[in-house]
Every structure is written in structure tokens, then in C-alpha cells.
């Protein structure tokens, strides 16, 4: 068993060791080992040319990571909190995501951007967001978001090895979570059925997957057999896995840690409806209210979808309320 944050360190270490073109950059990632301790020990092992502390310059860092990728390097950029991604988006959207296409496939941009996301840690409105949806409509990048240490390892290695830009989201409430590490790679763009069930398909990501699994346990005791899918990838969406599940269950509930409008859940249901409307008996979304993430524990807990709300939602839905 290994902590999620250590799985990240392991993946980075294995990539740094395997490929001399890989390097890390970010604020406080080298000497300090990262504010979430996800790069600890890497400076010592790989030296200051491979693990670089940067100034607080998100534009320069993201632009430079892109430029180095054009030269054949494989930068892994850490943006400390996902909320700061707003300062990185120009280079991601207007450069990294576009250059291969614009070059007529002459160049690739093997860039990985890692960032810590999500609410529930009492960090308030500007340190708790889920920026995956900000980039969800941008062609040319992948967005992945693991929920377990094993997936974190496998997806991060795949991200670093990919020849296109990948945004890699790390949920803050998972860093201390423990799980198995088999050092297997996980293909980008694939969802995983993490619990089989016949009555209803529940889709979530990151911390939400664990809530979904807990909710499934509660519901199982009440006789509802929930299949839980860890979407793992926002872009591309693995509709196939979802469709296969819904073929069996006919019902889908998505659990999203964020507002419904413009979120991934509504988009997933929409694409599902456009592709397989006939399969659907019911489709719903458990999401956060359309508000920023509040600081106060009582408010933040109310903001979050959580096991209780998920369970209550499913019960009501099945009861036809």
C-alpha cells in the first residue's frame, strides 16, 4: 500500500529515470519537494537541471514548458493549485494544444501539467476549484484525473510519455489516500468500472468516486445494485464504457464536484443522450450549487455533493419523486 502522493513521486521518478528528456518545473517543487510533497526527494536524485524551482511566473513557466517541449524535451509542469491554472491557460490553449495541428503534424508537444484541485479542504473559493472544465472544450489536449494511487501512477506515466499535452488533476483530498501500486500504465482516455452493478450506473471522478462507492454500499444494503464508473478522463470522454454500462442498467447518475452548468456531468449525459437515448430510462446529476466554494466548514460540506446527498438523490429518483 502506498499513498497517492507517493505514487506521484514514484511515477515522476520512474519517468525521470527512464527518459533523460523528462524534467520537472514549478514553484517550490525542487528544494522544498512541493507544497503537497509530491516531488519530494527528486531534486536530490535527479539534480537541479531536471527538477527546477521557478519564480511565481505562471505565464513564463507555461510558455517555457511549451517551448522546451517543441525542442524535444518532456516538461512536467506543476501548477501549485488548480485555481492558478487561469494564469496558465493562454499558453495551453493558444500554443500547446494547437501547435501539432498548426504545424501540419511536423511537431509534437509532449507536455504534462500537474495541478492540485478540488474542494473539501477548507481552502476556500480560490484554492478549491476544479479547472478541468475550463479546458474541457479545447481540442488538442487530454485531461485526466485519477482517484487511486495506482491510477495516479499509471496515468501520470502515460501522460509524460504522451506526445501531446496532458492536464493531470490531483485531488487534494486524495493525497493521503492509500492503495495498491502495481506499476502498470493506464491508457489515457479510458474510464474504469470500479464496482459492478445491475440497477444503476454512477459516474464520478477523483474524490467523487470514493463517495460514489460509499453511496453504492449504502444503497446495496437497501437492495439497489449500483455500478460505479471512474471516468478518469475528461478529454477524451470514454463514452463507450459508459454506454456499455447503461446498456445494462438503463439509468445514470453523475456526481460532479462543481456547478452543473458547464460541468462535465451535463456534457457526458448530453453526449450519451445524443448517442444512445433509447437506452436511457433515467439520467440525473448530483452536483454542487451554482456558487463558489465557501470556506466555512458547514457551508463547504453543504456545497459538496457527498455520500448522503448522493444516496438521498438515488433513493428519491428510484422512488420516482
Amino acid at each position, binding site marked *: 500500500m502506498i499513498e497517492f502522493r507517493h505514487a506521484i513521486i514514484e511515477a515522476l521518478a520512474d519517468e525521470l529515470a527512464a527518459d533523460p528528456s523528462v524534467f520537472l518545473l514549478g*514553484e*517550490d517543487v525542487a*528544494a*522544498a519537494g512541493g*507544497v503537497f510533497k509530491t516531488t519530494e526527494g527528486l531534486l536530490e536524485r535527479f539534480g537541479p537541471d531536471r527538477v527546477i*524551482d*521557478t*519564480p*511565481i*511566473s*505562471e*505565464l513564463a513557466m507555461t510558455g517555457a514548458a511549451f517551448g522546451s517541449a517543441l525542442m524535444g524535451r518532456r516538461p512536467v509542469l506543476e501548477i501549485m493549485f488548480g*485555481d*492558478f491554472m487561469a*494564469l496558465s491557460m493562454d499558453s495551453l490553449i493558444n500554443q500547446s494544444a494547437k501547435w501539432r495541428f498548426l504545424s501540419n503534424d511536423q511537431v509534437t508537444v509532449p507536455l504534462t501539467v500537474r495541478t492540485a484541485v478540488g474542494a473539501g*479542504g*477548507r*481552502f*476556500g*473559493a*480560490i*484554492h478549491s476549484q476544479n479547472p478541468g472544465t475550463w479546458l474541457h472544450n479545447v481540442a488538442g489536449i487530454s485531461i485526466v484525473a485519477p482517484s487511486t494511487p495506482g491510477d495516479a501512477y499509471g496515468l501520470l506515466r502515460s501522460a509524460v510519455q504522451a506526445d501531446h499535452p496532458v492536464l493531470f488533476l490531483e485531488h487534494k483530498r486524495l493525497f493521503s489516500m492509500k492503495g495498491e501500486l502495481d506499476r502498470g500504465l493506464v491508457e489515457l482516455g479510458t474510464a474504469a468500472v470500479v464496482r459492478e452493478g445491475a440497477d444503476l450506473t454512477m459516474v464520478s471522478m477523483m474524490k467523487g468516486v470514493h463517495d460514489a462507492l460509499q453511496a453504492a454500499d449504502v444503497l446495496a444494503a437497501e437492495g439497489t445494485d449500483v455500478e460505479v464508473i471512474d471516468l478518469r478522463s475528461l478529454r477524451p470522454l470514454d463514452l463507450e464504457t459508459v454506454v456499455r454500462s447503461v446498456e445494462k442498467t438503463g439509468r445514470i447518475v453523475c456526481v460532479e464536484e462543481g456547478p452543473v452548468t458547464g460541468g462535465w456531468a451535463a456534457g457526458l449525459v448530453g453526449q450519451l443522450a445524443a448517442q444512445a437515448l433509447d437506452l436511457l430510462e433515467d439520467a440525473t446529476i448530483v452536483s454542487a*450549487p*451554482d*456558487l463558489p466554494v*465557501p*470556506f*466555512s*466548514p*458547514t*457551508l463547504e*460540506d*453543504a*456545497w459538496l455533493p457527498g455520500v448522503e446527498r448522493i444516496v438521498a438523490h438515488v433513493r428519491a429518483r428510484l422512488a420516482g419523486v
Partner: protein
Amino acid sequence: MLLRAHADMYAIRRFEEHIMRLFLRGEIAGTTHLCNGQEAVCVGLGYALDEDDVVAGTYRGHGHILARGSEELRLAAELLGRVDGLCGGRAGSLNVFDPTRNYIGSFAIIGGSIGAATGAALALKGTGRVAVADFGDGTTNQGYFFECLNFAKVYDLPLVFSLENNGYMEYTPIGNVTARPDDLAGRAEAFGIETERVDGMDVRAVYEASLRAVERARAGEGPQFLEYRTYRFVGHSRSDPGDYRPEGELERWQERDPLTLSRRALTDELGTPDEDIAAREQEVDERLERAIDAALASPFPTPEELEVLS
């Protein structure tokens, strides 16, 4: 005035010590950034401002908020996430602010305070009011900083750039990632902005330099830039033990603790009796005790609030 300044700095120090205790007791969740060591900047700058001048600060904002005159009870209640908080518990330490005192934000995005203060100054131009952008040394590598230096100078805005140079970003010494770290003010000079370097541990020096800058800005002489040399005596945030500091550095700076300096000046220069100082400090202690207790007695907001809003 120095006795008052001493008491105000003392109040900030003690207030944040309470906060740290509440943190360790689990009463406050998340994170918090203390300005322990930097109180002279908060108070000296605060004294140089009028009530209707405007300040935009950072996540390290408690001291500046108190210097604006916000209620200790309500600030503490905010950090505790209670309904009596300055922001009803919605903001917390990272984001708390008090528009009623013209403290328009604790910006958790590096550089955000500068953009906002620049805009405030744009709105205040010609009114005789002044805006202050407070930020740290690490922020001088951020795009907002430079763009706003230019922006403020172009429109000759009544804006005071207030750089609290404590020598560190979170855990990285500023010199490691900064070109010419010993001349951060030189970056403002490249835009033709007047600058002054100030001993940020000496509340009188801070006050006098700040007043000069504020008055120039008020008089329509355009943006001003102050670099306060200071130090934080504690870690960057709650979880940081501050291991990255070279040996002896903290101790050297602690000799110049703003409270030590003001106490010494009171005694040695102004002949203030120790009892007077002690009496003021005790007053503060008791006031804070009451404020913290009252804050702890304030209820948490009810979740229904969110349902109403959305």
C-alpha cells in the same frame, strides 16, 4: 503615537497567536498565513492612510485588516467560519476582507491585489483618495506586477505599491528565482516610478516613508513604490516549520523584532515607563481574550444559506 503604534502591533501579534492556537486546537480548518514579524508595515502604513483610502492586500492580510480598524471579533469569527465573520464565514483566512473599512480584498492569487488596487486607483483618480497595493517579494516576478506598474504610470494613478520584502516566497528564498533580488525597487524605476527603500521593522520609518509616498500620490504625482525590508518569524503557512532558513538568520532578524524596536524606542528615547507599556499590552490582551471568546461563541452558518442563494 509610538505607544499606540506599539499597542497596535502588539495586538496584531497576539491576535495571530490566538489564531495559531485555535488552529492547533482544530477550531480553525484549512490554512492560514501569519504576518508575525511584519506588523510594523501593517501599522506604519495604516497610520499613513486616511479612512477613505483603499487597501488591497494578500492572503497574509490579518495585520492589514486590523490596521484598517476592522473589529477583532469579526475577523476572528471569519477565520473560524462563523456567521459573525467579516464575510459571514464564506471567505476564511485566505480571502477575508472588509469593504466597510475600504480593505477591498485579501487576494489569494499572487498579483491579484495589484490589479485590483490599480483599478481602484483608476476609479479614485482626481478624488484625493489613494489606493494601496500590498504584496510580497515573490510577487515581483508575476505578470500582474509589471503590467500594473506600467498601467499605473501611464494614467498617473494615485496608487502606492507596497512591497513587503520578507526574503521568501513560500519556501524558496527570493534570490534563488529572481534577477537582481537586491534591487526589486529598480523594477519600478524602469517605469519612471519614484521608489523608496524602507526599514520594515521600524514602525516610525515605515510610517514616515509611507506618509511621504501617500501624500505624493494624493497630490497627483502618480504612482509611488515602497519596498519594506522585513521578515516573517514564522513559517509561510500553518504547516511550514521554516526549515529552509539558513542557520542564525531568524535569530538575527528577531533582534530587530518590530515590537522590540518600538519598546526600546519608547523606553530609551521617549522615556515611557515600563508600566505604561505593560498596561497598554494588558489592555490589548484582555480585549483580545474577549474578542476571541465572542468569536468562538458565534454560530456556524446554516447550510440553508447555500440553498437560498443558488
